């Protein structure tokens, strides 16, 4: 959060410039949305607000975003933001479209927001992301008549980053939690399969579908230890060859590095906190790795 949008209208992120370009696409899209706003002056003030830490909380609760912004008054103002929820009918179109490509389900299940998700929403004539800022509905308890007021605008700035913590809140705001969405998707996929299977009955491939591997109920096989109670104590394994000599990673592929940046929205007052947090974990990780290696080496001495 280096500069207000007024001096730098191209700003796309609340992060420092280092972070530019590494932002997930939805954050960029969100920032574009904000930058399309006409009242640059109000935006600049909201930016200051956000940067100075006046936003004390943002909560995603069901389909709404609840936030508190410390204004000039004693009590913080309460801000609510929401999007138009998709109707069940709309959702059914979206789901049908989503099942057409296995990739969409695959990515959603792996925790990745597909970059072309809007194409699935287009089937219903709706969008996941608001197209115009006007589509973001809001309310603020401040006396200012204008909407968005600077409190609401301050929330706008911080929202993008918050999407990174859990991109699936977007679905939530549109009326489906991630869990529900995945469940619905699974069901939809089964429906598609049933159709395919019906079609396949006249098809030559239908053998493939009546595989004997499918089980209608859990067959309860007794645990091996029930058949042979001596397994209760038995262990005849040998130490895995890879565990004989314990060494640090050669490729530097530590967990922290594989996981990348922590998707936690930055607290404006502590601009370097996340970086500090990660680098401290990294340093300590090396120390602890060293200790563990020595401990492993001294085994059996």
């Amino acid at each position: 959060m280096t500069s207000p949008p007024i001096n730098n209208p191209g700003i796309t992120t609340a992060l420092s410039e280092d972070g530019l370009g590494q932002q997930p696409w939805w954050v960029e899209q969100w920032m574009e949305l904000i930058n399309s706003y006409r009242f640059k002056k109000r935006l600049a003030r909201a930016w200051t607000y956000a940067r100075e830490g006046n936003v004390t909380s943002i909560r995603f609760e069901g389909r709404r975003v609840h936030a508190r912004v410390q204004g000039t008054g004693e009590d913080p103002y309460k801000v609510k933001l929401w999007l138009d929820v998709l109707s069940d009918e709309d959702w059914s179109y979206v789901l049908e479209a989503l099942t057409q490509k296995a990739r969409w389900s695959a990515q959603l299940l792996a925790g990745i927001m597909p970059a072309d998700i809007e194409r699935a929403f287009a089937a219903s004539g709706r969008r996941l992301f608001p197209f115009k800022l006007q589509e973001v509905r809001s309310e603020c308890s401040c006396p200012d008549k204008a909407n968005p007021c600077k409190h609401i605008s301050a929330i706008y700035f911080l929202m993008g980053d918050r999407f990174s913590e859990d991109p699936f809140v977007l679905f939530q705001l549109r009326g489906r939690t991630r869990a529900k969405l995945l469940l619905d998707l699974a069901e939809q996929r089964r429906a598609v399969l049933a159709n395919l299977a019906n079609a396949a009955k006249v098809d030559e491939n239908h053998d493939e579908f009546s595989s004997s591997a499918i089980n209608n109920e859990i067959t309860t096989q007794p645990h091996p230890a029930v058949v042979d109670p001596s397994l209760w104590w038995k262990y005849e394994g040998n130490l895995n060859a890879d565990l004989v000599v314990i060494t640090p990673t050669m490729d530097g592929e530590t967990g922290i590095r594989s996981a990348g940046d922590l998707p936690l929205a930055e607290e404006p007052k502590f601009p370097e906190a996340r970086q500090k947090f990660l680098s401290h974990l990294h340093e300590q990780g090396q120390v602890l790795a060293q200790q563990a290696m020595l401990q492993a080496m001294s085994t059996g001495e």
Partner: protein
Amino acid sequence: MSLLHATWLPAIRTPTSSGRPALLIWADAWRVATPAGPGATPAIHPFTLNPEDLRAWLSEKNLLPNGIIDATACLTLPSRSVKCKSKAKHSVEKSTESGKSRSNWTGLPLQAGEPIPKHCEWWPWQVQGLAVEPSAATAWLSNLPLSGSHPDLGDELRWWSHLQRWALSLVTRERWLPQVELSKGEGYPHRARWVPLLNREDDRRRLEELAAQLPLVATCALPWREPTGKRSNRTTRLRPEAMQAANPVASCRPRSGRLRVANLLEDLVDAQLRQGFEPNTQALDPLLAAWQEALGSETGILTLSDEEAERLATASNHWKEGVTGNVAAARACLELFTPPENEDLWTLRFALQAEADPTLKVPAATAWATGSQILQLGEVQVEHPGEVLLEGLGRALTVFEPIARGLDSPTPKSMQLTPAEAFVLVRTAANQLRDVGVGVALPPSLSGGLASRLGLSIKAELSATSRGFTLGESLDWNWELMIGGVTLTLRELEQLAGKRSPLVHHKGVWIELRPNDLKNAERFCNANPNISLDDALRLTATEGDTLMKLPVHRLEAGPRLQSVLEQYHQQKAPDPLPAPEGFIGQLRPYQERGLGWLAFLNRFDQGACLADDMGLGKTIQLLAFLQHLKIEQELKRPVLLIAPTSVLTNWKREALSFTPELNVYEHYGPKRPSSSTSLKQAIQSMDLILTSYGLMQRDSEILKTIDWQGVVIDEAQAIKNPNAKQSQATRDIAKESKGNRFRIALTGTPVENRVSELWALMDFLNPRVLGEEDFFRQRYRLPIERYGDMASLKDLKARVSPFILRRLKTDKAIISDLPEKVELSEWVGLSKEQQSLYRKTVEDTLDAIARSPRGQRHGKVLGLLTRLKQICNHPALALKESDVEKEFVNRSAKLQRLEEILEEVIEAGDRALLFTQFAEWGHLLQSYLQQKWGFEVPFLHGSTTKRDRQAMVDRFQEDPRGPQIFLLSLKAGGVGLNLTRASHVFHIDRWWNPAVENQATDRAYRIGQSKRVMVHKFITSGSVEEKIDQMIREKSRLAEDIIGSGEEWLGNMGVSELRELVALEDN
């Protein structure tokens, strides 16, 4: 003996604890116990050590962890149903009157190693032990042995030590992320956790391995809630209903271990990191500061509002999601198939693969068709297979982008890849995919394994004139280059390399050429080396051995070479050699094979270690071998045999009876030759020279001057310590040689498993096999002994196994060759003290007997015989001493030998019965053996009470870790007892009547018993014991019929008869 166990106590919240998990360690020991059943709460485990005893025992064993508190838990254990005797049952009912008794079941929990009854039930038992807090537990587990079994530690502790080592490996490789674990419900805190990342292929495999082998005792506990409540500073017992509610009679069901093991690992990694992590909250916002604080705190409690904690949990979870998913029974798998003839495109099929067994796969279509049902993959059940597959494909996309194209349909089954994409997959993406937890199956010729490397296919045979007895000799051979299972010429290789395509098609197989392949092949062709028999032996010993950097994929040996290789690697039983002419007696079939093997290695001039189990006749096989050499006119120079003093007599006796043609000379005693010349003189025309280890070392200068044809060492463990003088001298004498000198070692111990002792043995047998001692220690000993490194052990065994032949009496092939009872005569001598005492006693008493009136003579004769037998056992017995002093063992040759044999019995984990007719000797022996080995040796004799008798017998028969040695007096223990767990019976002193001895032997031996019983009869050579033995042998029928069971008839002998019987013969 007590056995230590460890069980994980899952985190619970109690007034005193904030709900951290703990390692519960507890020990059980066998004792007589009353069967019990659960009342309102689980019954108390009757075999556990109480916490004070446990602490004392652990600190004595140097195993006491830090950070412990007394703890109780309910463990679900397999149990044996035992009906309660009426009295006991009554008391159980009475005690459960207050609570509601749910069951009338009574029984006992099984202990590790106990025979499993036909019908097992599972019941919870209240177990007392010590709870070790997690960070102390990680330190404690890190110090447990990683290999081998330990008498005090349950097997499952080794599982724990392996799990902890994995945790250390994950921490060392920094494969972890911090997470937030939300409260499990009202009153529970939110916690910061360190979690291991198990996305990588090797870690996933390890999880499956440890889960498949999980000893369930490690995770069978429910925490026990403190049965007390506090009311106005007074501790009161909870009401029975409250107790019952807090500690219901509930069992843990045995379930699949994957998730459990992952959780245990997580607890260990968390504890490991938590204790060392130093938070630094400078410049952190409150959220991150609180998280970091909690990551370094002992309890991990997060001091954040629910809302903030939830936000942190979501974000950290999303963070982790980018690396790894949940632990599941199956994973997505990509199978690559080569293009059909004349086509370009490769096929990539989507499939689902069981984590536990990667060979279990079903095509994607099956996963799609399964829908919301459960997919059965072999024995593995997969829930939501479609979702598992999709999630994997989603992850696959992040490292191998071309897959996206294949996922455009709703239920994709396969896709096609361009040659370039296929190459990327083979070369780099396959490993990356495996690292994100997606299985990849490549065509065998491209799988990256050894077979896919450029190597050699070799055909070889002994040269026409060779008999295959010289290791250095060159073989007739030819070779071809080989890759991916097909052969190719250098020219073809050049052509393929010229295509500049990394994946090439040759003879119907796709292969991957690597940059150095052509260069290595050219180098090899130019060198065109010879190979020797030695090379062939090496190349066939271990897989993947190389010849000039090229792996040998195939070695086709001609029939004659093949036969040599097979014998050498013991892939088939050695060709038997029948007992040579002049050998008195019969060789059992396995002994003929042993003889054949000794002769085979001798032809190669290779040292041999015959390590057959005790009682299988190593002595006989060696004597037969020497006789074989003699008959073949190959025994031209003397052979030196070195043995412990205690068995020299035995050797002499056996040689006399089995191979009387061998001229045996004993280099022993004060009158032995003291110069090289006199020794040479003395052993002229001698075949076998016996000496002890001690004298060999003392006289090594003289012995070295003899041109031995061979050196044999008996009880070869005597040279196990490479730096001991005795060991060095032995190895020296084996090496000094003008002509060839064969080396043979005999031992009854499992020598190939004692890594530390192998070096000295191999240095004696074949010095070059294991190299210098320093190299050996670094390369084999440390990795194997400290960490149980199987790869090193396998390699080591491959190197030494051609030279070690070990058969066990339990081997199927051996059992059929053996009679049910194997009788072994253990010949022993007398110590100096024994000799002089014996002589003096005979002289003094014979005169007295001759002078005494006829009526008293009878008693005096019996007295004399008894005293002589006592002297043969131990002077202390004859002199009525009651203490075991320092020199105790050295005063009796019989005791020395007994101790040596018992050591082998103990090491083999066998059990033995020791019979003596002298109760005083039993007591002395008991205290000596207990001192010597530090464990209890029960002694059953005439004044043992009936109750103690039963307890001793029960314990010997039933306690899985019961005493291995059981002393019995012949009269009290000879009849009526059932002691079938023993596989060795020792008759320390002889009874005149074989029937009495046989009756005692039958305590261990029962008809229909599948194991063989070894009966050791000690005979002091030259003494009255030998005469008795002779008598029994010659007239054993007569003895049974006439003598009955008493010794009375002996009293009626005439003096001259008597003199002959008792006189000590010099030999």
